[in-house]
């Protein structure tokens, strides 16, 4: 039993170490180091030795000294087994090993005898592995997007793996792609249009949604149940089936290539979610507060303006942010309705740029960074509001 759990522990922990060191190696390769071999087998073997030494030593020496010492020895071994590598790379290896060995703390020869220890080991390491895996898989494309925007086409053709930033260059050289897309490709204008459309959509949606949500939440009227179920069904319906009729009608009314046309469509498609999210919140406001308002002789307008809105600011904020993000990210309708560069939104402008095969990719990525940053910034800053909104509204994309 003990031997089996020890074997499982050694293999899995070493496998995990090999994985994170490989990721480190890949990241280092992308900084221009010319590694051509992942050296998986030797790393795996010395990883097993490391874990074995760790559990064998157990509590005989101070754990901090033990972790430090083992990581140090491991790094030296790694240095000799690996291709020639600079010191910052080995320092990284040392820090990773140090992190890894400190995660091993709870394992010792004694703990390997516990019930279900093999399953626990597997679960623990799957957790660690999962965190590294998800973080890497998600962040890697964003990382590539960012660093590509700072490179030049020629540099990338010479060595497609060298994403290192040359800080000896002046700032104007480094940010050249950004200057170019603003000066040559007019991105300043597209940012303004995208902002105008998104903020406009938020305002108009709230203007329509707040009264409607109030009515659905509070008042009794014929067709109320029908309305609240159809809200749910409507946002199951896809944009792609709306595109052809809207395109033909908008063409005949001259609404194509107009920001106003886009605004109407965005408002109409986000309204159901907005109403759904808001009415849920309005229902949670105690009715007595409104009754007091009615006693004071307020009409429904006064009640909404002076009682409901001030009380539900967090919900309104989350709906607003959410609608903003949908409108900012929207692509399909802007592709269909906008043909003239005069009225492009950011997304449409980037797609238009990519249509020209000659466009250097760093411009494309600089544009992508510009369209992504505001959304990620809003998301990180207001995450709490947005997450509650996302789950409450059960979400339209």
């Amino acid at each position, binding site marked *: 039993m003990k031997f089996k759990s020890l074997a499982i522990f050694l293999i899995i922990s070493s496998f995990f170490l090999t994985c994170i060191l490989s990721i480190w190696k890949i990241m280092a390769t992308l900084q221009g180091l010319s590694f051509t071999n992942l050296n998986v087998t030797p790393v795996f073997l010395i990883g097993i030795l490391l874990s074995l030494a760790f559990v064998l030593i157990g509590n005989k020496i101070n754990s901090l000294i033990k972790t430090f010492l083992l990581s140090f020895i491991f790094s030296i071994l790694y240095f000799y087994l690996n291709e020639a590598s600079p010191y910052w790379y080995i320092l990284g290896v040392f820090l990773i090993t140090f992190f890894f060995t400190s995660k091993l703390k709870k394992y010792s020869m004694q703990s390997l005898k516990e019930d279900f220890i093999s399953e626990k080991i597997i679960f623990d390491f799957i957790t660690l592995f999962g965190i590294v895996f998800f973080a890497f898989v998600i962040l890697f494309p964003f990382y590539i997007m960012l660093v590509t925007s700072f490179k030049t086409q020629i540099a990338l053709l010479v060595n497609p793996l060298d994403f290192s930033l040359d800080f000896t260059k002046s700032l104007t050289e480094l940010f050249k792609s950004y200057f170019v897309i603003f000066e040559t490709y007019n991105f300043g204008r597209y940012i303004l249009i995208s902002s105008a459309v998104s903020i406009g959509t938020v305002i108009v949606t709230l203007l329509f949604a707040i009264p*409607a949500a109030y009515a659905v939440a509070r008042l009794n009227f014929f067709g109320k149940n029908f309305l609240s179920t159809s809200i749910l069904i409507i946002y199951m319906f896809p944009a792609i089936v709306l595109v052809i009729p809207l395109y033909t009608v908008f063409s005949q009314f001259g609404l194509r290539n107009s920001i106003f046309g886009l605004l109407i469509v965005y408002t*109409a498609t986000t309204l159901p979610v907005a109403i759904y999210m808001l009415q849920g919140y309005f229902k949670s406001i105690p009715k007595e507060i409104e009754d007091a308002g009615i006693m004071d002789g307020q009409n429904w307008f006064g009640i909404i303006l002076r009682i409901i809105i001030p009380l539900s600011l967090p919900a309104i904020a989350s709906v607003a942010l959410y609608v903003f993000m949908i409108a900012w990210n929207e692509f399909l309708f802007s592709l269909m309705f906008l043909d003239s560069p005069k009225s492009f939104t950011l*997304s449409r402008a*980037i797609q238009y740029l990519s249509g020209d095969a000659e466009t250097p990719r760093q411009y494309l990525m600089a544009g992508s960074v510009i369209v992504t940053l505001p959304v990620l910034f809003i998301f990180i800053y207001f995450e709490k509001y947005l997450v509650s909104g996302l789950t409450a509204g059960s979400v339209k994309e």
Partner: protein
Amino acid sequence: MSDSLSKLEKRTAYTLVLPAVLLVFAIVLFPIFANVWISFKDIELKDIRIPEPRAKKIVKSISENQSELKIIYKLRNSSLIQEIRNVQFQDKFPTNVSPLNLDSRCNFQSKKVVCNFGNWQAKYRENFEITIQNNNGEVIDKKIIKSQKPILSGKADNPLLTTNFTLENFKKVFYENNFVELLLTTFYFTFFGTIGAIIFGILAAQLVNQNIQGRTYMRGILLFPYVGPVVALAYTWTLLLDPNSGTLNALLVNFNIIEQPINLLGQKYITMSILGFEFKLRLALTTVIFFEIWRYFPLAFLFILARLQAIPQSLYEAAEVDGASPIQKFIYITLPQITAIISILFMIRFIWNFNKFEDIFLLTGGASGTRTLPINVYQQGFAVSDIGMGSAVSIVIVMLLLSFMVIYFRLIGKRANEV
């Protein structure tokens, strides 16, 4: 008394709801019905503009004599295929200015030239000339003449509103459109995209639900692909997967994992052999599905995490006392608690994946075996310019969706209240 109060309440409710309802009806529901209409018509992209009579006014001096001017109107029918009936023309002139020679179709009354041009065939063009002079021999200001725009009107059929219908579009959809493959591709994409997103969602939720350091950061990072703009993310992936200088292929070649770069987004099939069995994998489709999973597992993750956090800890503690293993805890406690949310997620994501357009369009444009129904709507309607055919494909999508929804509300809808 209470009766009038409830009447007032009703009236208030309708005033509050109506603007939103009307807007949604106009933009979301009307097009769905309009699709039915268009799908039975033989109509192309170029037909959708209503034909208009147009005139371009050119003003020319005739001689030294500045009191006379020649005006040329370049008249045309804007449509290449439709006639305009009963075209009326009208242009205004300043006081004391009158035309010298007037076409028989026109007459001059109270400073206006009014003409009746009759019917214009499709592609009709004419250069219509008038010479004008000042009655007092004074100089005519060219700018004033130029700034006055002629008014034209005429009757033309709106090609959208005519009542000649045809079944041709649907015939083409089912018989000339590789319909079976189209449907299969759509289902592969939808099904595996949905399943994958849910599996990764469960894994991620399990991870974040444990007591690990920095779990709030982890939750934030996990949602990045979902909140990022699709255009930016799709192009980043295209660049990453590019066979010639994409980072992924360059890395794999560099570390000798593959010999030749693989065109992950441009190759329809790849032959794989596992345990001696050779089979063909739909490569581009698989890549697109992975992108889809990458982008949408965060949604599944968020919902499942919310559900996991609501499971009482006492259940796990009791299991611990009973000596349950981690796997047993997951199977007997966690899974039953999240099946309801998973079935709802499955349906929602299934429907949305079924309609997914942007992701595939931006990654492959529907090439290399990634043509799904929504992509086909775009291809038929805008690339081939056959609006009627595009609408017919839309109708097929709507029909399939409606049947999914019926199944959804029959099977799972009742459960929705429990969650």
